[in-house]
């Protein structure tokens, strides 16, 4: 039990809450699924309740919702133009989901769903899937112009196209790895420093005095994590907008 408390990886373990096994597949309702539901519930409830009064002069909560709306709207319009606004619900949902998931993960004893690469990769695959499907339905094979830069000599074309294809395929990987690595590394660091506080204060008066240092560090790291939670949600949304721009205007 004591080993569990200072184990920095323990917080990422997936535990089934309601075991469900269908046809040899483990479809259990886990703590990860619980927190995904909680994320969706919190985000929807916040947006619904804060905008329910619909006053012309917004109150505090309503202005937070409006700021989030305008923030994502401007981001999308800057990156993909007014045509990109048809993807606004998609990008806004992604942004709110990642942001709320990151912020919920900052609470003690809460599970951080974005610290699992399969979750972030699922989100990134959704983005790239949208880009590819929309690009092909809108432009047909003209979408493949994305992989052929202008002004490249013909004899270099096969090599360049191969590299561009790999570069395109690596986008969801880097998108998901970035979010996952940030959240994982931040939470492990936080846990390690908090663990120092616990194990130092068990050493008597000197230990308690010494544990002030890692405690201060943990507080500072919590502030940094809060920033990272916002920053990564923002980066995720910005890159989504840029990729959607490629689907809308391949080859420009």
């Amino acid at each position, binding site marked *: 039990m004591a080993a569990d408390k200072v184990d920095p990886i323990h917080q990422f373990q997936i535990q089934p809450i309601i075991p469900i096994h269908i046809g040899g597949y483990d479809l259990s309702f886990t703590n990860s699924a619980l927190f995904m539901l909680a994320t969706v519930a919190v985000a929807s409830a916040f947006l619904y309740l804060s905008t329910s009064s619909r006053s012309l002069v917004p109150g505090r909560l309503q202005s937070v919702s409006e700021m989030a709306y305008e923030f994502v709207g401007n981001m999308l319009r800057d990156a993909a133009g007014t045509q990109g606004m048809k993807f606004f619900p998609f990008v806004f949902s992604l942004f709110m989901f990642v942001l709320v998931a990151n912020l919920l993960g900052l609470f003690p004893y809460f599970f951080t769903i974005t610290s699992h690469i399969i979750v972030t990769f699922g989100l990134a695959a959704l983005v790239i899937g949208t880009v590819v499907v929309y690009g092909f339905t809108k432009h047909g094979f003209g979408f493949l112009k*994305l992989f052929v830069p202008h002004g490249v000599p013909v004899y270099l074309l096969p090599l360049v196209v191969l590299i561009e294809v790999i570069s395109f395929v690596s986008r969801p990987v880097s998108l998901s790895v970035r979010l996952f690595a940030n959240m994982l590394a931040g939470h492990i660091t936080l846990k390690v420093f908090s663990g120092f506080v616990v194990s130092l204060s068990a050493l008597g008066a000197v230990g308690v005095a010494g544990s002030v240092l890692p405690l201060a560090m943990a507080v500072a790291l919590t502030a940094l994590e809060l920033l990272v939670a916002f920053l990564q949600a923002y980066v995720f949304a910005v890159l989504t907008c840029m990729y959607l721009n490629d689907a809308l205007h391949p080859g420009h």
Partner: protein
Amino acid sequence: MSLNVRSWLDGRGPSNYVAGDFKKRTDGDGLTGQGGCVADKNGPDGTGKTGRGKQHEADIRDDDLERRRRDLEASLATRRPDRLEGKDDAKAGSVAGYGQALKLSSEFIAGIVVGAALGWFIDRVAGTSPWGLIVGLLLGFGAGVLNVLRSAGLVSEFGTGDKPRDPKE
């Protein structure tokens, strides 16, 4: 703001501004002129001579003020962007640098991983081991470098051979 930009585009850089300021001083129209103004004002006031002379002095002073204001505007226009940029760098230096480093490294690693994975997959399907992995790794390295350069805004975006977009951050 448009005026500021125009004056900046006119090539009124810091050096121009300094030269203008220097010229003004040597002309005797600026500081010395003002000094003369003050002395003259005392003079006519003492003799009780008012009206036209004073009006003339006021014109000179207004012109002078106007020109100084324009010079100040131009110099502020040339300095303001620099200062803002510097402030941003100083403020966000550590956090933005950390973010940038993570971003670039993840781009690079993703390129190599995807290249190697594709090569390995081709090997498995076509049975060309180990050549698919080798070629895939090399191409993935190229794609990783391309990702990093593109993410840093040094290479054109997808599908364009034009000049790159303005560098991000």
